[in-house]
């Protein structure tokens, strides 16, 4: 290290640690979302609506022989949760686009906060939002007749799937936000999350499907996450065999998405 003149000697500031910085950014993200009712209310209402409306509209599908549950809300509640959590994740991407466009993100990047805190902070916010959405959809779902078939334990896979999708959505959303830095990223985020969730057993089980969708859903790793979310709500037993595929998908895609975000963050100083 170089010796410095008295005037320019670095006024010692302790190194910023990851956790406090991440928690600070999480707090900001959560407080801000409540100050934007036009974004906040739909983010809660849409998953609730999706769970209720799908189970009402497609009520009849439970009558198809072999359908894995006799309550349509049991089938569609987890879908609402997964969709809501995905949007909780990419919602972080949206607000980061705003920060990037408005220039506030430069302020954040100027701080000595560890770069991983810039990702974990928003991630924690997304996980919190996902937890809130899951709890609300679950509550409303139960009011509309949803019944976990494996007791309280059945709720665990639902939360795991929700947190997993929220993580994936955050990584993907942030990564796209860093690369495009404008609203184009938001359109791509929405479209992709929508596609990967719907090109699964989202609406009906594989054995009921026909043609192309069955082929796609079979190889779509997100199908495992959807299955995981429904484990506690179907008549089939909850076994590890049914669980590990979803967990693996979450870890695999989640790590990939966060890596995508990290690369994007590092490359911000290239443009």
């Amino acid at each position, binding site marked *: 290290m170089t010796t410095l003149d008295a005037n320019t000697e*670095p006024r010692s500031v302790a190194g910023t640690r990851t956790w406090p910085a991440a928690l600070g950014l999480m707090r900001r993200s959560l407080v801000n979302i409540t100050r934007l009712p036009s974004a906040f209310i739909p983010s809660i209402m849409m998953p609730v609506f999706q769970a209720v409306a799908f189970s009402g509209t497609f009520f009849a599908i439970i009558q198809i022989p072999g359908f894995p549950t006799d309550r349509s809300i049991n089938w569609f509640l987890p879908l609402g949760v997964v969709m809501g959590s995905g949007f909780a994740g990419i919602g972080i991407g949206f607000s980061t686009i705003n920060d990037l466009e408005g220039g506030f993100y430069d*302020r954040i990047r*100027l701080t000595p906060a560890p770069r991983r805190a810039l990702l974990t902070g928003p991630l924690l916010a997304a996980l919190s939002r996902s937890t809130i959405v899951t709890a609300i959809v679950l509550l409303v779902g139960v009011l509309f007749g949803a019944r976990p078939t494996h007791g309280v334990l059945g709720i665990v896979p639902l939360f795991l799937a929700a947190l997993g999708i929220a993580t994936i959505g955050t990584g993907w959303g942030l990564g796209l936000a860093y690369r495009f830095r404008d609203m184009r990223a938001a359109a791509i985020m929405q479209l992709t999350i929508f596609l990967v969730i719907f090109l699964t057993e989202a609406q009906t089980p594989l054995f009921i499907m026909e043609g192309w969708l069955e082929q796609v859903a079979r190889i779509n790793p997100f199908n495992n996450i959807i299955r995981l979310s429904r484990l506690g709500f179907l008549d089939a037993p909850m076994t590890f065999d049914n669980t590990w595929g979803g967990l693996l998908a979450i870890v695999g895609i989640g790590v990939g998405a966060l890596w995508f975000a990290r690369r994007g963050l590092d490359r911000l100083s290239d443009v």
Partner: protein
Amino acid sequence: MHNAALPIVAEGLQRYFGSGDDVVKAVDGVDLQIQPGEIFGFLGPNGAGKSTTVRMLTTLLRPTGGNGRVAGFDIVDEANDVRRNIGVALQDAAIDPLMTGTELLRLQAVLYGLPKATHATKAGELLERVGLTAAGDRRVGTYSGGMRRRLDLALSLIHEPSVLFLDEPTTGLDPMSRISLWDEIRRLNNDGTTVLLTTQYLEEADQLAERIAIIDEGVIVRKGRPNELKADVGSPTLFLNVDAEATQQATTLLATFGELRPSPEGALGVGLDAGPSAVSNVIRDLDQAGITVRHLELHEPSLDDVFAEATGYRLEGADT
């Protein structure tokens, strides 16, 4: 003093955007050595490369070539150490409009790793310092432009940085707000903070900066103390009025001090080759010749003249 010990050093700093035939050389080899405790003015029109240079020095943008050290640390390899020691007030004061002033300051304190116990007092002090105590709990979205700039400055001071970058801090401000911000910058400088200030206002650079650099099309075209730069442009012009019947004699006499210059109606103008100190000689000679001087004005070359001479054009809206 060795370069490495200076608060801001740039050597051949380059930043190109795009590639191939479309490459834009936003900054093309900038050298800077800024002294401790100095206010350095970085002057140039929009798009000249000021902000790009600042973005590189503040670790926001990776240089294409060359290198830089800020507060003794390399801007690429030791970016986090640089960040810890610099304060930056950004162009346009981009601040999250949904948060309150106090919340922003506290977030800033968290991100700079200040001890938790100090956050509240620190935020309060800074708000008071920039005169925003009453507005501290209001959302930034409700602030005026001047208030945002002041908050932005407060945000950049939370960790008591030794080097302060101010990127066009007064662009778009009304004259009153501008002057109060200038006062604050001088006060910070008196406390020992080194300041690099970019501006497109000649007057701002003239008022605040001990040394300036003029950047144009990514290249520094002039560098030095404002007075020296002005002196380099040419000699000061002396305008004087004498009685009409003495005009002929006075003109002959003045011509011995330098070239005669265009002057306002009724006045005589001469460029003083020997500089301002020649004024007393002019007066004495005129006096000895029995010519009474009715009115006298000495015009130093302005930074505007320096700028025009360096770049071949004048800054829009330049104060002359």
